[in-house]
Structures are given as structure tokens and as C-alpha cells.
């Protein structure tokens, strides 16, 4: 069944179809419609979940942790300062190996106050142990929520599904809503092996001395590595059942003979897709690598897509101050160890911070700059700064 949905409501429908059992959330622009819709679904009895009103995002995640630890499928959604307020508990959720799923609407960090999009809120949570999926469309958002639970519950790590503020969260698109029966088949009821059991009491998250801490962190990293294959497998199964695939961790778009590959994520990938088509029509050998997953980092996929390419341009709607665009830095990092003759120069562009539009013209500007230069002269190439 198709519906015209805003991105935020695609999140809500994803949670509904995943039959989440506990929702603990605190409203924040531009996430509000996600939880409004969910509370409505709960009130109407469409979703049999316990909806917990909390006093902060820190508490929202704490409640999700407790619920998941008790064996319930938990969900929350937030944005920007709400996400960063959760930071401590993001570590906890992952360290406790709880398969929580959350949607985060990418919104810039203050000050100055901004309700508009960039990725600095979620990319600052890079090292918490959460998987991150950056979505391009409302359909991908809905599908990714369902996939996220399937992945999380297999690898026992939490997953964050990300969508751009307003460009996706508040944009209405036709979305195919899968059949509940099929989703139930795809995603059976959670059976969490390490849940609280009063018949077999034990404590969770208590003191762990140096002789064992390292081993648990090793296992966390192994779970992240294992997630790679799980993500691909889940995406395949999803395609078989629902007819849609997102390529697993990344999507290569018209890269087969490309001399220049543009790397983009989120809605910028959607715009890039259009520009790539236009330039192909104009006879230029360009392609696009869409970074869907940022964690686990799709190391092998990136190498496969970019090795031997003449030039690479990365668009980052984020910045790690003192270094550069975060996707760009990680891409350069994974290319470092490949053969020198196959290693392309990587141009790092920063654009669209704080919700500045990344239009087809912006992307054309990026591509023509990349074609013009042999090598990047600066670590960061800023797009659109008024100077």
C-alpha cells in the first residue's frame, strides 16, 4: 500500500511495522512528528507499545536501555542536542549490547541556534558503538528501520537511522508500506538472550576489572565486523521479500567506467544522483558512491569502488574541526594501504552546513573544480563560503 508520507512519519511507520514494544522519547524539532505519530498510534491501539513520556533525551535512552534489558523491543527518536544529551547512554546501550533502534534527524549543533540540517550531531557519536545508516528517501527510512532491528538483534549492537532535517524529515513522498504479515515474517518477535530474568537473577553493567574489560571491547569490535555480512544478508532478504534493496552498506551509482567518483550521503546523494545522470548525458564519465552505512565503515566497499579511479570528490555536510570532512578523512584513511598506483587523489569538499542548500549547481561546482585540479591543494575545499 502506498501512502504520501513525510520522512518523519516514514520513521513512525517503520517502528509500527517493527512492532516496537516500548517507546521512550522527548520531542525536539525537527523530530517531533515522529513521536507525535507514534503516540497517536499507541493511543489508537494500532501499536501495542508502552509509550513513556520522559523529561529528557538522557532519560529516553535510559528507559530504552532498561526496556531492552528486560527483553522488549525499544525505540526512540531524537535530533541534534537531544542526541548529544544522550551521549553517555549511547555508550551504555552499545556496551551493554542492547539492540535498540533509534531515528535521529540530522540537525546542526548550536550555537548559533539552528534547526536545519547537517551531520555533526550523529557523527560526533561515531565512537559510541552504534551502527549508523544515512538515508536518502522516505522509503529508505521506513525500510531501514525494519532492517535496523533485524541487524541489531543479530549482532547485539544498537542502530541509528539518520535522515536530514526538513530536506527529508518534512518532505512528503510516496512511500510503499509493506504488509504487516510479511514484516512479521521478516522480523520475528525479539528473543533477547541476555534479558533480565527474575528466576535467574544477575546484575548488568557492574564493575568490570581490567582483566576482562579488554575482552568485552574486543567482542564489540568483532560484532561490528560481523555486522558487515549481516547487513548485506539482511538487505538481500529484504529485497527478496519486499522487492527493494539499498546495496547493503553502500550503493555504487553509474561507477562502472567512471573516471571521477563523487562520494555523498543522505539527501545530498539524491541530488548527486540527478547531477551524475545529467553529466553522463553530457558524456562525462562520472559516477557516485552513496555512503549508506558509516558504522561499521564499509572499508572493502569503498576500496572496491574507488581504487584505480582517477579522482574522487567527497561531499561532507559535517566537519571535524582541526581536521576536515569526516567521511573524506575516513575514506582517505582506508585508501592509504592500497597500491599507490591505484590510489586516487581525494578532494574533500565541505558544503551545506547548518542547512545551506546543496543544489545541483553546488554539485556541478564541486565536480568541475575536481576535474580542473590535478590534486587537492587544501585538505578542505569550502563550498559557498562568503569571503
Amino acid at each position, binding site marked *: 500500500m502506498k501512502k504520501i508520507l513525510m520522512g518523519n512519519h516514514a520513521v513512525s511507520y517503520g517502528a509500527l511495522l517493527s512492532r516496537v514494544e516500548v517507546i521512550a522519547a522527548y520531542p525536539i524539532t525537527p523530530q517531533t512528528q515522529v513521536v507525535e505519530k507514534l503516540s497517536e498510534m499507541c493511543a489508537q491501539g494500532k501499536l501495542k507499545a508502552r509509550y513513556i513520556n520522559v523529561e529528557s533525551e538522557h532519560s529516553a535512552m535510559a528507559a530504552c536501555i532498561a526496556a531492552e534489558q528486560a527483553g522488549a523491543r525499544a525505540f526512540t527518536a531524537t535530533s541534534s542536542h537531544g542526541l548529544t544529551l544522550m551521549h553517555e547512554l549511547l555508550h551504555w546501550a552499545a*556496551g*551493554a*549490547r542492547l539492540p535498540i533502534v533509534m531515528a535521529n534527524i540530522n540537525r546542526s549543533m548550536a550555537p548559533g541556534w539552528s534547526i536545519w540540517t547537517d551531520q555533526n550531531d550523529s557523527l560526533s557519536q561515531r565512537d559510541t558503538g552504534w551502527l549508523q545508516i544515512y538515508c536518502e528517501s522516505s522509503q529508505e527510512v521506513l525500510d531501514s528501520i525494519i532492517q535496523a532491528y533485524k541487524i541489531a538483534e543479530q549482532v*547485539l549492537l544498537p542502530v541509528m537511522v539518520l535522515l536530514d532535517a526538513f530536506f527529508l524529515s518534512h518532505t512528503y513522498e510516496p512511500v510503499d508500506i509493506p504488509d504487516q504479515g510479511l514484516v512479521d515474517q521478516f522480523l520475528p518477535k525479539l528473543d533477547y538472550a*541476555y534479558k533480565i530474568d527474575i528466576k535467574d*537473577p*544477575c*546484575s*548488568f*553493567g*557492574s564493575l*568490570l576489572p581490567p582483566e*576482562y574489560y579488554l*575482552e*568485552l571491547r*574486543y*567482542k*564489540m569490535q568483532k*560484532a561490528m565486523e560481523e555486522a558487515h555480512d549481516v547487513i548485506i544478508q539482511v538487505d538481500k532478504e529484504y529485497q527478496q521479500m519486499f522487492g527493494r534493496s539499498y546495496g547493503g552498506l553502500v550503493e555504487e551509482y553509474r561507477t562502472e567506467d567512471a573516471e571521477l567518483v563523487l562520494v555523498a550521503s543522505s539527501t545530498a546523494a539524491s541530488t548527486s544522483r540527478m547531477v551524475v545522470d545529467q553529466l553522463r548525458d553530457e558524456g562525462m564519465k562520472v559516477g557516485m558512491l552513496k555512503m549508506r552505512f558509516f558504522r561499521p565503515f564499509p572499508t572493502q566497499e569503498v576500496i572496491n569502488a574507488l581504487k584505480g579511479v582517477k579522482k574522487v570528490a567527497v561531499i561532507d555536510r559535517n566537519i571535524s574541526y582541526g581536521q576536515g570532512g569526516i567521511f573524506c578523512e575516513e575514506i582517505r584513511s582506508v585508501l592509504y594501504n592500497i597500491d599507490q598506483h591505484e590510489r586516487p587523489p581525494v578532494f574533500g569538499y565541505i558544503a551545506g552546513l547548518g542547512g545551506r542548500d546543496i543544489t545541483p549547481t553546488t554539485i556541478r561546482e564541486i565536480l568541475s573544480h575536481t576535474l580542473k585540479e590535478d590534486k587537492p591543494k587544501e585538505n578542505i575545499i569550502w563550498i559557498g563560503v562568503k569571503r
Partner: protein
Amino acid sequence: MKEKDEDEIKVVVYHSEQEMPPVPMSVANTLYNKTGTWKYVQPIYQNKTPPCNAGCPAGEDIEGWLSLAGKGDFSEALQLLLSENPFPAICGRICYHPCEKACNRGKFDQPLSINSAERFLGDYGIKQEATTSISTERKKERVAIIGSGPAGLASAYHLANMGYYVALFEASDRLGGSLIKKYSRERLPAEVVEAETERIIKKGIEVRVGTKVGKDVSLESLQREYQAILLATGDQKSKILKAAKGKAILSGLEFLEDTGVKWGVKLEGGIAIIGERDIPEKEIKSTPRIMTDSMGATHEKGVFACGDITFIPRAINHEVGSGKRAAMAIDSYLRGEDIEKKLELVKVGEGELVSMRSYITGTAKWVNKVVSFDELNLDYFEEKSRFLTPEMFAKGAIIKDEIAIQEAERCFHCGVCTQCDNCYIYCPDLAIRRRKDSQGYSINYDYCKGCLICVHECPRNAMSYEGVVK
């Protein structure tokens, strides 16, 4: 301290990450780590004496009966009260209630309205025609009590409760002594005195009114017939001489003279002297008293004294306490036991107050330490002024049960555990457990680190601590 199997120490050692669960969870327990060895102070769970109880010369368990009254169980509250004092309706009217001065709540907002609550319960008892149980064991010994004032009656009451045959000799034609002579009818109506006296007499006490010992019957003959004699004739000389000069009423002093016991003369095993420190010098000669030990035994074997004839302040509560002490002394004497050895057990607080319940049961409800205001955790109490006041009685109001309950609920229960669970909830080491017999809590000192959170969070100092532990 072992209660369950999971109290057994369990230790798991992993040799590889593959053996470990992915989740940081406990797989063994922490019992191997006896954190109790860290402590240098330790909590003690122990009921202590509430200041009201320590301030009641009659030795009532005031906190105890307030607790029951606060639960609306007036019948049990009355029984507990009557186990120490047979005169709640009388005391509720004429007692100068030092308990209320002692009440810690007085430093917080207003002291508990103990005297009024006692009157409420006493009147409830009269209305319900409440009775108290007596020992099923009938003892062969007989006790003669001379004088039927509050001390003599109180003693008769306790001795009868213990199963003794008691004969009460009263020179006048009415029982009650100072209760009917000393107080106005408005303050202490005759029917209240009659009702509470009647309740005592009904226990099978032989009453010999109009019988003056030393005139109608000799002390020697009583000594032959009774195994113990209790002198409870009161302080008649000073009061009676002032009030009814020249009338042929036998005073305590005259009684002593008639029976050959000389006051002011040093005797082996004890002395009889006159006067007390509270009485001005010039009056000393007119207030004869018998010297007894702390429990009422005179120098003469088998002869005891209580009430105003002994060295006590002349007030109903002291007289009731004195009668009770004499009853214990007589019982111990007749059993051939040394009452002095039981003093620590029966004492309430640090004074002369005694608990009949401790005496009968052989166990004390509290240690003698009295809880001070500073030892309470006031965070757990909210200000509430009195619901029940003496003025309400003066106005003739009918006191609703709810009022009495609300008043009793104001009690802080200083020193007495109410099983509020604070210690149990706050103990970070799970070293405090609820006892299976529901009698409060136990502390597992193997794991108690001596953090004293339980002591701090106990509102009423039932949890206290002791110093350096090795």
C-alpha cells in the same frame, strides 16, 4: 547468616574471550569479597527507649500504645496501656504528664497530646467495660495491702494479675485514698475513680474497708496470715493535719509508731526517716516517710512500702510506678529471687521507672538508651500541629476516633523500628535484610562496609552505630 543457596560464594575465572558472554553481566557473585572487613564503624539495629516512656513515672509504653492507637486498634492500645497502669482515665485527667515535656516532637512543632490520648483510651476502656487478663497460675501466697490509694490499688492490681491472693485493707469506708480526697469532682469525677477501681477489685481482690490496721486488726496477726505486707497508707499526716486538725485519723507517722517501726532511726538493712529534698526544711518533720530500697522493700522481711509514704514525688504517675515496683519486689521476694538482679531488665531509661511487661516476659523491648531530638532524621517528618487537645475535653466535645488516630499518628516513634524499610532500601551492599519472622531486619556484618547510610536514613534512631571495630 546463610539464608539461601545463592549466598554461597561463587567465583568464575575466564581463560579466553570465547568463554565470556558478550554482555557485561554477573555470572558469579561478589560474596567472595567480604566488604565487611573494610569497616571501622558499624551500625547496630536496636530499639531504644523513647523519651516519652523514659519520662513516664508510671512506666507506660507510651510509644507502644500510641502506635497501636495510630492504627485505630484502640482495644490493643488500651491493653498495652493497662499492662503498666490500671488508671488511664484517671491519669488522663490528673497526671502532670512529664511525658509531653520529654516528647521530642515538642522541639519540632508541638509535643504529642499524650495525656489527652490517654484520657481518650481510658474513657474508651470504661465505655467498653474493658477487662484485662490475669495469670492462670493461682499462687498459694497471700498478700495484704494496707491502704487503697493509687499506689496500693496499682500494686493490688499487678499482684492479682500475677495470680496472688490479695487482701486490701482500707481504714475509711471507701476505696481510692487520695483519688477521692485530693481532687475536685470536676477534675476527677467519682464515677471515673469507681470504674477504674472496680476493674481492679473484680480481679478477685478481698476488700476490707473500715478496717484500720493497728486498731481493728494488728500487724502481727496480718504477718501471721499473709506472706507479704505492703504499706500503702499514703502521706496522711502533712495533708490531713493541715486540713482536719485534731481528727482521729491515723497518719503514716502514727501508723509507724503504732506498729513499732521508728522513723529516723538507723536500722539494720535500711532506715526509716522523715522528709524529702523537695520539701522546705520546716515541713520536713510533718512529712513522715519510710525508707525503702529502690523497689519498695523495707528493712523488715516481708514488709514492703509504696506510694506517698515512701520517698516519691506526690503525684499519681509516681504513685502508680511505686505500686508497680512494690508488686515486683513482693513477687520476687515470694519466689525467693533477688529483684535487684532484674533491675537492668525492667528499667525504662535511666531512672527508677520499670516495665511490668519486661518483668513478666523476661525480655525488654528496648535498651535503656533514650533517643534525643538530635538523633532523629527530621527529613522524614512534616510539621503537623495537634489534632487532639485538653481544651476539647474541657469544652465537653465528643472526640471522634479519627481525631485520636490522627493525633497518635503524629508520633515519631523515637527509637522504635516501624519497619519503614529505609535501611533495607538504602543499604548499598544488600547487607540489611528483612527478617523472615517479620521482626524487623538483620545486618550481615560480613558485607556491611560501615557506610552508616542506614543510620542516617533511619528516621528514628532504631539504627545507630558503634565506634571503632577491629
